[in-house]
């Protein structure tokens, strides 16, 4: 790692240039995110079609590329229905509450290496908040308010059930989400996402490998947080019509739809940043740069090509997670409600807690042994990361072994067992309450 001062000095933009750069970044990022979200709706339909040996939408534009535009136009022009008994204020507020947090969370995710310009170096992040992850957690959990309010304000039993389920599910999985993040936070020693990317570069290992069990729990929680298919109980079509947005039509419905895909995108970007090194390119050292700290440039010199390549790396990682989201959605059936709760409270919560403790102990041991995080032993072995990786891999293996073959999550077989026990209990109760009958009456069993 280069020490400060060994390379030509770079400074981040200040003053008016900062404001202009920020405005441009906000505009470009917002437009890009909206377009990507629109394209995600198309991608989902295309990917699902391909998985089912169909073609998917291909009528509007080349290969159906303009389908999102057509959908948007249709949704704007459609009639908006307001149920007579619905609470008008909250009914209107809910889609906004749903879409705003989904759109805001992009602000704290770094999407490329800093870009050098004649006016200074521009960090490729909209707002490098020192409380990055806390901001993200706060806003991503705000999204559930939109869903719960939508379910309640619709004056519809299915919508209400969907909203309740969303609330219960989000709370259950937010705990595992937060716990799995804790390992990342104390290994990185910081909550700013730029710092986390930098620490992963320094450690010569992505947290996805070093903290694999956290990665696994975070991933599962993300499915639950975004209401994607194995956990899409809030809108379970076969049970609740479409759950919380049953009563919504036209653009309001569309806003829920956009919010869901925006969440998918956010969560994919977040996982790429936290666990796959963000915009870091593996092996390549040239992209290891952090930025300006107290007037000194930390890491390698920024360059335009590095920014472009790192952005591509980030996009690729995000795309990987999005594809996994879609693959899982079109493969795995929906959990039963008690299974969702079992998984959240009985497996993920204790296991994540144990994982945090074990990882913390490992980090403490490594620190006490005086093994520096940045050091490569014998030139290429990142001992610090490897030890963490082995410990986490063992835990992950144990969790997978426990979760496998119905050892913890109950299948339908156990439901039969439950029914049998319930039948026996009922029979025993009936025996005790039986009124004494005449001796010559026929015994009924």
């Amino acid at each position, binding site marked *: 790692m280069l020490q400060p001062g060994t390379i030509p000095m770079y400074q981040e933009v200040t003053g008016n240039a900062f404001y202009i750069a920020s405005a441009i970044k906000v505009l470009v990022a917002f437009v890009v995110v909206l377009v990507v979200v629109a394209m995600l709706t198309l991608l989902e339909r295309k990917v699902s079609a391909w998985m089912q040996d169909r073609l998917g939408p291909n009528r509007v534009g080349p290969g159906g590329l303009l389908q999102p535009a057509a959908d948007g136009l249709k949704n704007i022009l459609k009639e908006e229905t307001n149920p007579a008994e619905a609470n008008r204020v909250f009914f209107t507020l809910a889609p906004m509450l749903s879409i705003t947090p989904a759109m805001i969370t992009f602000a704290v995710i770094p999407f490329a290496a800093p870009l050098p310009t004649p006016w200074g170096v521009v960090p490729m992040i909209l707002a490098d908040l020192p409380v990055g992850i806390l901001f993200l957690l706060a806003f991503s959990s705000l999204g559930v308010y939109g869903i719960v309010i939508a379910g309640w304000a619709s004056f519809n039993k299915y919508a209400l059930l969907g909203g309740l389920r969303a609330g219960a599910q989000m709370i259950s999985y937010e705990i595992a989400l937060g716990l799995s993040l804790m390992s990342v936070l104390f290994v990185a020693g910081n909550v700013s996402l730029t710092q986390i990317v930098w620490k992963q570069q320094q450690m010569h290992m992505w947290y996805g490998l070093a903290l694999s069990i956290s990665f696994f729990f975070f991933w599962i929680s993300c499915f639950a947080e975004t209401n994607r298919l194995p956990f899409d109980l809030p809108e379970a079509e076969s049970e609740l019509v479409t759950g919380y947005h049953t009563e919504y039509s036209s653009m309001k419905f569309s806003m829920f739809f956009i919010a869901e895909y925006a969440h998918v995108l956010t969560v994919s970007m977040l996982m790429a940043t936290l666990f796959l090194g963000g915009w870091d390119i593996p092996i390549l050292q040239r992209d290891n740069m952090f930025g300006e700290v107290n007037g000194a440039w930390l890491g390698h010199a920024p360059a335009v090509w590095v920014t472009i390549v790192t952005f591509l790396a980030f996009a690729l990682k995000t795309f990987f997670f999005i594809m996994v989201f879609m693959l899982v959605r079109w493969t795995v059936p929906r959990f039963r409600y008690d299974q969702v709760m079992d998984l959240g409270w009985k497996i993920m919560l204790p296991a994540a807690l144990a994982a945090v403790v074990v990882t913390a102990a490992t980090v403490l041991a490594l620190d006490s042994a005086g093994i520096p995080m940045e050091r490569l032993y014998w030139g290429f072995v990142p001992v610090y990361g490897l030890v963490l990786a082995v410990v986490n891999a063992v835990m992950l293996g144990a969790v997978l072994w426990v979760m496998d*073959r*119905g050892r913890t999550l109950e*299948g339908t077989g156990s439901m039969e067992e439950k029914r049998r026990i319930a039948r026996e209990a009922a029979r025993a109760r009936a025996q005790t309450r039986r009124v004494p009958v005449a001796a010559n009456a026929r015994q009924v069993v």
Partner: protein
Amino acid sequence: MAIKVKVMKRSKGRSSYVRATLKGMALTFRHMAASAGDRSDVTIQYPDQKKELSPRWRGTHVMEQHEDGRPKCVACGLCPTICPANCIKLVPGEDDQGNRYPIVYEIDEFRCIFCGMCQEVCPVEAIHVGNHYENAEYSRTNFVYDLDRLMAQTHPVTLLWDPSDPAGE
């Protein structure tokens, strides 16, 4: 509540949740990779491509006509008699030479069950069912094809049997 699980007597490979999930995901991924880029070979892009109809396909009727544009129909009345759906309306007429011709000949395509018996029974091979199926209309009355419309149909007629092997042997 004790967590008591009944695990069915199956081999590990078949009862493993993790392996089953991964297997399923591999399957969907294979299908996606196989038809990515709209390469699915089972889909027929209907308005653009059409499936080739069998020569025995029985669809919209066609009335054959003579070179001078008169219908071949001799108004014998066999087709309205045999029609199981009772969808053919025929009013016979006779001209000065004593030739019978249909004054009114209407088929309600909405009511027709496309059995093809009218074609089988026709002694002069005038009425035919045809290789055609796209007969959507905006109103019910439009489904009643009159004589002019039946004669104006241009699609090929149905071969109810192979001419070289009429008995199907």
